């Protein structure tokens, strides 16, 4: 397959055209077209099993497309694998470490495989130590690390060689809130200071909202929405009144739908989501209606549209469940 251009740096960091990947009868990726610019943080958002990891594995040269094409920095991931590998770093979904090495040994080995000299590796390790915050544990065998420590070391291993394009497959899953914030901060710093292009997959809405310049939403292998997070949320065009109920209260849903200005009413677990163009105007009527219907309410919150609402808008399903605390998804009022 031809390259996009002779100057790799001028090419998009990532580009796919009609990218399809099947596993037997299962279509994991279904005609994905996307383009990620150099220096961008691109968030690929979707629920478990949507195809996020499959796309990362294709872009990292571990899987080949069934049809369509994918390029990294203008190099085809099938025809120019070696060129692609020189330009990428990746932390895949499952932490991939050798438990029989120490943290330092593993990072040094990684640096050597990317052709770095001893002094260069020393320099990079000094920088990376601050990110992963493992202290003296870096000199210990990896088999003694906790899950969070392994996750941070895995991320560091993807960064040793300062890749042009960094692929992160759910980089903060399994991390405590403090470590998560640290990783977010480092992702921003890598992007701001080095212009590193970062392609991250996540099922955490707040992570995509917080980090990504642009977000692609994937559902059942198809890219169903793409854009800047703010623009995507604006496209839904609604505020959402979230009512947490103490009981099912199914009978009240029709009454809520009859309130003037309400665009939709949906149930998600013990929550009822009432969407309206002007959320503040319907908070009172919602409370009164529920009271009239004798439905016990735990609390009522008004928030602007979230990426979960965008996902719901385009797929009719939600991915918000499993969201870790402290992500700050949505703006509760």
């Amino acid at each position: 397959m031809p390259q996009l251009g002779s100057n790799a740096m001028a090419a998009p960091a990532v580009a796919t055209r009609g990218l399809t990947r099947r596993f037997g009868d299962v279509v994991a990726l279904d005609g994905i077209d996307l383009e990620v610019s150099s220096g961008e943080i691109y968030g690929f958002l979707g629920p478990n099993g949507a195809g996020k990891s499959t796309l990362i594995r294709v872009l990292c040269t571990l899987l080949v497309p069934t049809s369509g094409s994918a390029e990294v920095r203008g190099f085809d991931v099938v025809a120019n694998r070696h060129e692609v590998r020189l330009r990428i770093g990746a932390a895949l979904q499952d932490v991939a470490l050798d438990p029989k090495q120490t943290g330092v040994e593993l990072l040094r080995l990684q640096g050597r495989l990317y052709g770095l000299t001893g002094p260069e590796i020393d320099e990079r390790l000094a920088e990376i130590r601050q990110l992963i915050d493992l202290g003296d544990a870096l000199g210990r065998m990896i088999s003694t690390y906790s899950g969070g420590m392994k996750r941070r070391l895995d991320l560091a291993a993807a960064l040793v060689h300062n890749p042009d394009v960094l692929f992160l497959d759910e980089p903060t899953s399994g991390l405590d809130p403090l470590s998560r914030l640290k990783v977010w901060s480092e992702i921003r710093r890598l992007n701001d200071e080095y212009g590193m292009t970062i392609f991250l997959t996540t099922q955490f809405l707040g992570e995509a909202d917080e980090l990504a310049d642009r977000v692609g939403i994937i559902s059942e292998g198809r890219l169903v929405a793409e854009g800047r997070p703010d623009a995507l949320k604006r496209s839904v065009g609604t505020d959402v009144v979230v009512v947490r109920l103490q009981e099912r209260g199914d009978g009240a849903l029709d009454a809520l739908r009859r309130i003037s200005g309400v665009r939709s009413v949906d149930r998600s677990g013990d929550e009822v989501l009432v969407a309206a163009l002007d959320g503040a105007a319907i908070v009172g009527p919602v409370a009164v209606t529920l009271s009239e219907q004798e439905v016990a309410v735990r609390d009522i919150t008004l928030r602007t549209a979230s990426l979960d609402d965008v996902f719901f808008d385009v797929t009719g399903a939600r991915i918000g469940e499993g969201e870790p605390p402290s992500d700050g998804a949505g703006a509760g009022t």
Partner: protein
Amino acid sequence: MTAPPDAIHAREAGFWHDLTTIASRAVRAIPREKESVIPALLIPMFWLLVSVGALETIAGAVYPGLDFRGFQLPVAVVFAVTGVSRAPDLVIDIQNGYFDRLTITPVSRPSLLLGMMVADLTLVIALTLPVLGIGWILGVRFASGLAGVLVFLLLAGLWGVAFTAVLYAIALKTANPAAITAGLLLFFPFAFLTTTFLPQAALSGWMATAAEYNPMTYLLAALRSLILVGWEWDTLLAGFGAVIGLGLVSVSLAFLALRSRLRPR
């Protein structure tokens, strides 16, 4: 938002650099796996002491003049060097995803396998030396002198690598530790359908036929000749030929399995 011009970036390291990097990792892991190294060291020593203790008198009566200790030392060495392999580690790498991490680097592909084989060769030679030391204590001397000891080490090491290449082929093909264990069973026909206990002339019937086609027969003959006879060139040539022949087949199988494993699916 561009990287500073002096920023550190990846570059191709080259085959030899990659080979030493992968081999260093594998060698570093050896002393950390005492549970596999210590038995590999003790079993051949045990074999040598027991077989000499139990059979030396009988062998002396049947074959007057046979230096049974020198006859059995190569068997103990072959026991030490056969099946000592990084292949189980390779299976773990594949299962826990570390092999994927290695393969998305620009590392030279052959070095992923050859690096482990270099580590095996290092370990095999390291295991041979103490067994030879026990032989020395028991009075075994090399008729071929110090140079003969070096050739002995080389031949034993090549055998170790030739045999373990089969285990790498299995590891890469199956990524299954049980399959590796099953592969080790191959050692038994190699080790016992041959001249382990008796000289080839003493074998008869189907056992003689099996031994004739068993490469270990020629390996043992070559190793024994270095101890008992000196420089017996045709025996040495047959020994190297048998080991290299087996190695060509097994290493080819291992590289075919590596190619299959590395091919994006």
